[in-house]
């Protein structure tokens, strides 16, 4: 088990499988109505979304809100470094958001791994889902 303390921005207790994306623009690269990544069709619904770097349009906040509206919200968003566009979307949608994931940890984590985050923001990897 690997463990690290993240900084909770929108706090929450989270348990779920990881979807890992190197860099992401929510607008243009996420389909909120279907709850999937447009590029490869991976589902975000109920998953713990690990993002290496976010980019792109300021409409991104609405896309995050729309994921909740259509019932496709991820269980949480975990970032190396957050930014206001994602923060605003996560607050409006009530999606737990954490930042401060070490970059090497992001590199090592695999799609489909299990993530567990407690109320204080401690992330444990490698458990069972």
């Amino acid at each position, binding site marked *: 088990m690997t463990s690290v303390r993240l900084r909770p921005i929108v706090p929450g207790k989270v348990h779920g499988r990881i979807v890992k994306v190197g860099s992401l623009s929510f607008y243009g690269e996420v389909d909120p109505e279907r709850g999937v990544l447009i590029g490869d069709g991976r589902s975000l619904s109920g998953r713990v979304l690990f993002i290496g770097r976010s980019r*792109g349009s300021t409409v991104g*906040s609405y896309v995050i*809100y*729309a994921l909740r509206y259509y019932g496709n919200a991820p269980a949480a968003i975990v970032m190396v470094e957050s930014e206001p566009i994602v923060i605003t979307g996560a607050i409006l949608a009530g999606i737990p958001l954490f930042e401060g994931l070490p970059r090497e940890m992001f590199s090592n984590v695999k799609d489909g791994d299990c993530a567990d985050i407690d109320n204080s923001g401690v992330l444990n990897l490698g458990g069972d889902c």
Partner: protein
Amino acid sequence: MSVRLTKEEEDILEGKRGEAAARAMEVIVKVAESVGAQRLVPIKHAHISGVSYGTIGEAGAAFLEELAGLGARFAVPATVNPIGYDPEEPQGAGVLRVSREFMRGQQRILRSLKRMGADLLLTCTPYYAEEFRRYDLSVGDSVAWGESSAVAYANTVLGLKTNREGGPLALMAAIVGRTYYYGLHIPANRLPRIAYRVQEGVDEAVLGVVAEYLAENHNDDKPPMLFLPRTPKDYEIRELAAALGAAGSIAMAVLPGITPLHKDPIPERTLDIPAGRIRARLRDLEPPDKPDLVFIGCPHTSFHELSILNSLLREKARIPVIVTLSRSVYNRAKSLGLIDMLEGKGVRFLRGTCLIVSRTASISVATNSYKAYFYLSRRLPSVGLAPLRRLVEIAMAG
């Protein structure tokens, strides 16, 4: 970690200006807390992105209706981005797909924004509109702008201070007349530490690819400074700004002689952007010889760019040329005869909308906008990038 609020700000948070303002203040304070801002800053203007039914859909329309219904009203002047069609000619130019349902959704969004007090300029380049002058903004003013291309232009060219605000955050900031004091609102954060030298001859396509390079390689939180072989034209800088916002999250660049700063920038080091890499990337992005259409005006074009287009386009275009622009710039160009001249050469205009925020048929496109390439290439079969001069050759050759 706590944000110091003034008495007035606390009153808003406690609901003394109504539920909508309290909710807006709550979001701004939470963002302030999470980025570590110590206070808020008054703003003089807001520009709101995310107003097309094509981008925010049903969820966004419902969100705005709820807010307007709660009594939300803007405390400062607020302009808004392009919508999903040309309001004066919804099926304009035959390239947009606009269903009844789409128009109904769009109307709901516009009604809610109007109720809150928005100026419906419907453009991503509000700074080109005649109406913009009445907001009386000057260098050093703090504003809250969504629309990443306008944010980068505001900081880089106009000397207005804004971070990249999410669409709804710019809206919340307009309601309370404040945003969090952070990032580019703080003068010291506007001074570059790293400069980049571009040796290639520049045009807007080169600058788009340069922006893509910076998005991937500039890891400093201060803006990059750019040394270019010549002073870029205004529309070239606009394309650079748009590409910075699309390919990454850089909200400002420093261009010597153009960017207003409170003191002279002294970068700690200067790096070369490898010319070979820029050339190779431009070759990758070359448009097909016969695209279905040529697209100019992402972000919305200026009067100046229209006159350059008019002088380059010596004969009638054989491939449709679509230009998107604000109603304000359109009306000015129309009154001076420029629109008629260009229409005579086969150019079609779409006002208050653009191809990115609307729905189009599956077509191949050549554009001089890296931003348009970035978003359109995700849903259209073929999108290429080339400067205005080359686009005009493609259009005339047919």
